[in-house]
């Protein structure tokens, strides 16, 4: 497989991630997803190629994943983030059997066996089990999202937030603040609430160790601790939790190319062009 390079493009609802790999990761780019997925895909790909010092036609195979995967015109294959996260974790943390991915607007649980996804659950309907929940609450409290995790760890007397609806919870925290509850205690309560929602969803898979946390939520120390408390044991974190999907996508691309070579099959490759996509392509 010398001289072969694989790209994984993960367009999430909040963040877009691109990874270029050969045996190891050569370059990665993380940026916010805006509304224009196609332009964005082109731009981050360009940036990644620049960092990897590669020309686009040197890329053997491109796999797109994530919410916006259908908007990557130069992708050779679209694969769901479930398969990609599974493949990524199988590579990064082979002992993991359950993955919990907490994104900006959705969350998922994935069960692995022998490095492959065998079952999954998703929540993309209700904000209450996602990063959005904390975002809305942070706004109501006048705290920056980045600080939420750290602040939650300072709680001495965690407040219970009973509303599972993001909007009601935001009302509830404001009410509790005016009643005199400490900010850290409230924030800890919010983390507990979101951890409960996520745990409730993932347990449908019959959780097995080791458990890995991925996605933006895994970078929130407060949420990690709250989830570990629910699990009853520590969770593993990949070095960069946001890149798991893109890494998995690139690796699946490598698997596909390898299988095609072994079978002597020719693969369909998209034009290696990063031109502006028009409405009619």
């Amino acid at each position, binding site marked *: 497989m010398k001289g072969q390079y694989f790209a994984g493009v993960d367009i999430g609802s909040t963040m877009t991630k691109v990874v270029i790999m050969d045996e190891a990761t050569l370059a990665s780019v993380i940026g916010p997803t805006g509304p224009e997925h196609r332009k964005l895909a082109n731009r981050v790909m360009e940036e990644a190629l620049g960092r990897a010092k590669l020309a686009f036609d040197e890329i053997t195979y491109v796999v797109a994943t994530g919410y916006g995967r259908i908007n990557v015109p130069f992708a050779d294959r679209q694969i769901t983030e479930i398969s990609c996260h599974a493949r990524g974790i199988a590579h990064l943390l082979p002992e993991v059997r359950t993955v919990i991915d907490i994104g900006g607007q959705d969350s998922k649980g994935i069960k692995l066996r022998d490095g492959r996804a065998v079952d999954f659950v998703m929540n993309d309907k209700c904000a209450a089990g996602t990063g959005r929940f904390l975002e809305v609450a942070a706004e109501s409290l006048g705290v920056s999202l980045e600080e939420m995790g750290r602040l939650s760890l300072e709680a001495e007397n965690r407040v219970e937030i009973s509303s599972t*609806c993001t909007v*009601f919870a935001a009302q509830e925290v404001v009410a509790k603040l005016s009643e005199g509850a400490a900010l850290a205690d409230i924030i800890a309560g919010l983390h507990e609430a979101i951890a409960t929602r996520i745990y*409730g969803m993932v*347990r*449908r898979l019959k959780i097995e160790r080791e458990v890995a946390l991925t996605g933006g939520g895994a970078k929130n120390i407060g949420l990690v601790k709250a989830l570990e408390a629910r699990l009853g044991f520590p969770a593993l974190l990949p070095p960069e939790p946001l890149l798991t999907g893109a890494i998995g996508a690139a690796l699946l691309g490598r698997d596909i190319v390898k299988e095609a070579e072994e079978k002597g099959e020719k693969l369909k490759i998209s034009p290696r062009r990063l031109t502006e996509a028009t409405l009619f392509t």
Partner: protein
Amino acid sequence: MTEEKKPEEKKKRKTATEAAGKIGPMVKAALAENLRAKEEGKPIAYSFIYSGYDEIIRAMDIVPAWTENYAGICGVKRDAQRFLERAEGENFSRSLCTYALCGLGFDSWREELGEMPPDPPWGGQARPTVMLGSGQVICDPRYKWYQAAQHYMPDVPVYVGGLPYPPYEEDYDYREVQDYYVKYIVEELRGLVEFLEKHTNRKMDWERLSQVVDISDRTWNMISEAYDLRKAVPCPMGTGDAMNTMVPMTFMMGTQEGLDFFKDLYDELKRKIANREGIIPDEKYRLLWGGGLPSWFALTDFNYFNSKGAVFPAEVTYRLVEPVYNLDLPRVSDPLEHLAWRWVRYWTYRHDRARKRPGSTPDVERLIEYIEDYKIDGVVMHEAFSCRSWHPGLIWQLNQLKRVYRDIPSLVLESDIVDISSYNEADTRARIDAFIDTLEAVKSR
């Protein structure tokens, strides 16, 4: 229920009557009794309230475990969430009956551990000997819940008997069909007796059954007469208390203890009326709880209504009896036949009346009857999101009431019976306040 909540929120609901105040300890004692009975090897039957089986269960000395009640207790103690989550973890949809979700979550946990889940409310619920569902019109969980529970307790037998009643229709009268309804019910009740004899090693004592049925008839009368006393102005007992007194009505039907309870309640209400003692000293608005199960964890809302001068002299929910002497029952010697006739006549009681008012139905007639007899100013309905049996039809009933009778002020509250995450106290209180304003405006016209 006069329950203590978790340490952070010590909100005791005040009861208007002493009778209602006895309920908390009564329920707690009954649960402890169940656990003891289990240890002694007595047969325990998971049961639904008001399924028509009470007299048979009591006559055979079988211990009923009221699973809806246990879920209600978890709700009142605000400790239902972990059981609901467990059920969701088993792939039961959150949109199903939250009593069932709570029960299924609890049972699957108990079965997995081989013992009670940690720190269970009031000692928990023991593994049953049999589970008695019912296929009557009341609701789907009554034939699905225990079947689903059997997935976690495959060796526990389930009985589902049908107790339907003639619907109110234009193309025929209930008298044309009641005979085959009664025949069916008798056969299903007989089937229940056979099932219980087979699986509990108890034999039915038919003499005893006749006696139990007699107590139950007299209890129906006693309850009706006691509740009729609430027509008084000022009203001595409200729906909040009735949500407590439903306990002996549904958990102890057919027992002397149950009958005695309502005799005591009757006497207490008579005393209060003689002393002109109302629920609140300054009664401004009289309201009808027109339908819907209450939020068990938010019974303090009734106190909130009271604080605004509003009382609830009457409710439809859990008023599950009529005076037996009004039901025009044929004289039969077989107690099962008597029960069947009582069931069918209870449910067809207002059919004739509805026919006299175009567009009306028996449910609407009942609302009208209470509005007139109890001098009602406004109607409150509660939509519990997980209960598809009592709640569909409430909006329509309210609309139809206004169409065929009069435009009476009304309020629709929304949350759930057990799932506290559905309840928004601030929003509920705001709605109540707005409703009080409406009532005041109508009164001062």
